């Protein structure tokens, strides 16, 4: 099948158009570098089939980053029928720079100008543009699918290639002479590439370093400047003649006066995030969760009793009721929270606010070895680490990507909430909310510390070139809202939900069968229990050497949401995921398991910090490779063990004086103080001796 390439600057709407043309649902985000690998899908034009290829964004045909290299190779491979070059109308001149690079190579291009924002009165004359550039130009709206059909039709046409006028004014003769055994067309292209000092191009064409050096010596030293100036001068003329000029700066907004303000940015950000968390985990999310579980228990009882009458009291029945059905209902009970959190964060991403946050905190996060974009992934981690780790792929810097993915699990995911509410609630009652807040905070602080250590040792941040276009604020359309919601539900249900249910089945099998494949109902003698008993002594120093707790933690390795139900099962309580609040039942029985409140605290800290579920481990392996995943697991286990030990001993020493709640408060205050000192030390930097306002200490005054 013949291929059609979608090529354009980052954030110009390529993926949006790709989704529109192929009816797919690839991730779209209002920032740089969302698509990092090529994506292909079939597209029908009249009765011909084409393969549409979505490529990562690029600024020119001299690639600098890895993604640009990907696109560059596809374009130079010339293995396609036509290129759709999508340009953002709001920043037309800069976008057309890439178009010129494509046209100079005589590639068959149709330019699609994406009218992202109707409000901007920036009229573009397609016909004039078309005659000046010598290719088809069509104004489209990728999201609303306006004129997309006209674009499709133009794909069937052949382009009449016309020489670009500015090229005639540049003296290519010397270097053309070097390529005299090539045909006229190629001579010009190769000469342009020599002027661009485009190493990637000549390497791709099989030239040796020696030859490349020779070629570059034939052009003037400022050849690139000559060429870019000629291109931009031509573009000035093109824009002048074909567009009605309006004086505006794309991406500039009065909102930024507030949102990017040095003093307001952080408090506002915290406020917005607090509001989102409130909506997700308390008001709206909790309400939806309740509604869903009520609905589930309503439909589950007749189905389960029906199953029982068919299957009897066999293990198959329990497989269905305990593993599959309970698994399904836990997945569904998290669904509202996870989806809501992701929905709000996607909204922030799409509106352009996330890019502002990434910008404002770029340098602070840089100090702890992360990049501004990490914040998005890390926030996602509070919903579900597995899905969050997937978003780390958008990071432009490999080391920050690995670090971000490794730190994600420290953001306490929503599957851990039942552990905190049920186990913590049973022991701390009303003050449990402070315990939970303390745990969340602890997770963040540990993440910062781990990141600092990694940054200073094995995962130094490589100082990458950092020149990015700043995206504008965008109002997300209803259509996009619907898509975001649909996407989030789908990812969570399909990618995460299916693994979670599978894991539930595994835990069920391990906790219901003995090593001799005998079925046991209460977990007594099961594989899980045996391993739990074997490992229990290791947890002695942490205050909970009981096999039931250890077995529950083991089950938690597979999936965090089964920790509570495992404790219940080993307690002989008929635990139902739809009754998360019934901690009093647990309380009565699990007191046996936790000898002191100190050991409960230590258990909760361990749950917060130890290895995430198998689903996120497998995602980590896919995203950052086996080596780093193993390193991550080791770090997590060690950190969890050490911190639980510390917490247990501190709490224990206070418990002697019967001060447990006070311990928490003191611990929390200490943590906050430590983090404030840390952040302060990070922010403090030496003043420039010359006292200039914006200098970076290296000014040469």
């Amino acid at each position, binding site marked *: 099948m013949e291929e059609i390439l979608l090529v354009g600057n980052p954030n110009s709407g390529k993926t949006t158009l790709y989704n529109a043309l192929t009816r797919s649902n690839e991730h779209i985000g209002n920032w740089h570098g969302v698509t990092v690998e090529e994506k292909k899908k079939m597209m029908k034009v009249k009765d011909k089939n084409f393969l549409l290829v979505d490529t990562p964004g690029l600024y020119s045909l001299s690639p600098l980053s890895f993604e640009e290299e990907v696109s560059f190779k596809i374009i130079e491979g010339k293995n396609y029928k036509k290129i759709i070059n999508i340009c953002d109308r709001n920043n037309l001149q800069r976008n057309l720079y890439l178009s010129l690079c494509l046209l100079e190579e005589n590639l068959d291009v149709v330019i699609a100008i994406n009218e992202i924002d109707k409000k901007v009165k920036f009229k573009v004359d397609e016909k004039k543009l078309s005659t000046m550039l010598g290719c088809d130009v069509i104004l489209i709206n990728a999201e609303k699918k306006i004129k997309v059909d006209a674009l499709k039709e133009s794909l069937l046409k052949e382009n009449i290639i016309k020489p670009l006028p500015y090229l005639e004014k540049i003296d290519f003769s010397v270097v053309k002479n070097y390529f005299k055994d090539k045909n006229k067309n190629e001579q010009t292209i190769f000469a342009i590439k020599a002027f661009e000092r485009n190493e990637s191009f000549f390497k791709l064409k099989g030239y040796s370093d020696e030859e490349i050096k020779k070629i570059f010596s034939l052009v003037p030293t400022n050849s*690139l400047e000559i060429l870019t100036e000629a291109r931009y001068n031509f573009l000035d003329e093109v824009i002048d003649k074909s567009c009605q000029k309006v004086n*505006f700066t*794309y991406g*500039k907004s009065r909102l930024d006066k507030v949102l990017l303000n*040095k003093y307001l940015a952080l408090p506002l950000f915290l406020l917005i995030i607090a509001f989102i968390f409130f909506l997700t985990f308390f008001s709206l999310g909790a309400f939806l969760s309740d509604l869903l579980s009520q609905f589930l228990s309503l439909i589950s009882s007749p189905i389960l009793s029906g199953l029982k009458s068919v299957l009897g009291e066999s293990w198959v029945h329990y497989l269905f009721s305990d593993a599959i059905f309970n698994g399904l209902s836990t997945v569904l009970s998290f669904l509202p929270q996870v989806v809501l959190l992701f929905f709000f964060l996607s909204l922030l991403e799409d509106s352009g606010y996330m890019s502002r946050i990434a*910008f404002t905190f770029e340098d602070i996060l840089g100090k702890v070895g992360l990049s501004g974009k990490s914040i998005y992934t890390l926030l996602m981690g509070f919903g579900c680490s597995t899905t969050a780790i997937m978003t780390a792929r958008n990071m432009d810097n490999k080391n920050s990507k690995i670090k971000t993915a490794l730190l994600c699990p420290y953001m306490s995911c929503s599957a851990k909430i039942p552990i905190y509410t049920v186990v913590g609630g049973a022991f701390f009652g009303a003050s449990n909310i402070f315990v939970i807040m303390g745990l969340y905070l602890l997770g963040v602080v540990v993440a910062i510390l781990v990141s600092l250590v990694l940054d200073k040792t094995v995962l130094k941040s490589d100082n990458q*070139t*950092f020149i*990015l276009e700043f995206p504008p604020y965008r109002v997300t359309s209803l259509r996009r809202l619907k898509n975001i919601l649909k996407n989030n539900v789908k990812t969570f249900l399909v990618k995460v939900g299916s693994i979670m249910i599978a894991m539930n089945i595994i835990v069920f099998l391990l906790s219901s069968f003995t090593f001799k494949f005998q079925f046991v109902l209460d977990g007594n003698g099961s594989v899980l229990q045996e391993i739990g008993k074997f490992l229990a002594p290791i947890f002695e120093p942490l205050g909970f050497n009981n096999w039931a707790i250890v077995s529950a933690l083991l089950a938690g390795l597979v999936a965090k949401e089964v920790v509570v139900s495992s404790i219940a099962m080993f307690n002989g309580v008929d635990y139902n995921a739809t009754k998360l609040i019934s901690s009093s039942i647990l309380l009565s029985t699990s007191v046996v398991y936790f000898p002191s409140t100190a050991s409960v605290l230590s258990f909760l800290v361990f749950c917060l910090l130890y290895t995430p579920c198998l689903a996120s481990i497998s995602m980590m392996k896919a995203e950052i490779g086996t080596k780093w995943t193993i390193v991550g697991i080791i770090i997590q286990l060690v950190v969890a063990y050490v911190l639980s030990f510390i917490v247990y001993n501190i709490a224990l020493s206070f418990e002697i004086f019967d001060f447990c709640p006070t311990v928490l408060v003191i611990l929390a205050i200490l943590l906050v103080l430590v983090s404030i000192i840390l952040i302060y030390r990070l922010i403090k930097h030496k003043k420039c001796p010359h006292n200039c306002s914006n200098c970076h200490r290296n*000014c040469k005054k």
Partner: protein
Amino acid sequence: MMPLTSGKLNISYKIKSISGENEKVARRFLELGLIKGQAIKILNTSILKKVFLVEIRGYILSIKADLLSYILVEKM
């Protein structure tokens, strides 16, 4: 002439030259339209002033300070 990093916020400067010290960076600057004589303006900086927002040719770029110091400007 001075590096853009020591410029003031919201004041237009004219690009005088771009140091070729880092060839990759100089190339990207040119490709993005930062050529001699072009007007450039600092709009904002990140908290530690390690990243700058600059306005050029009607759009905004975010650029790390150490790269920005390659751009030499003078007052309009």
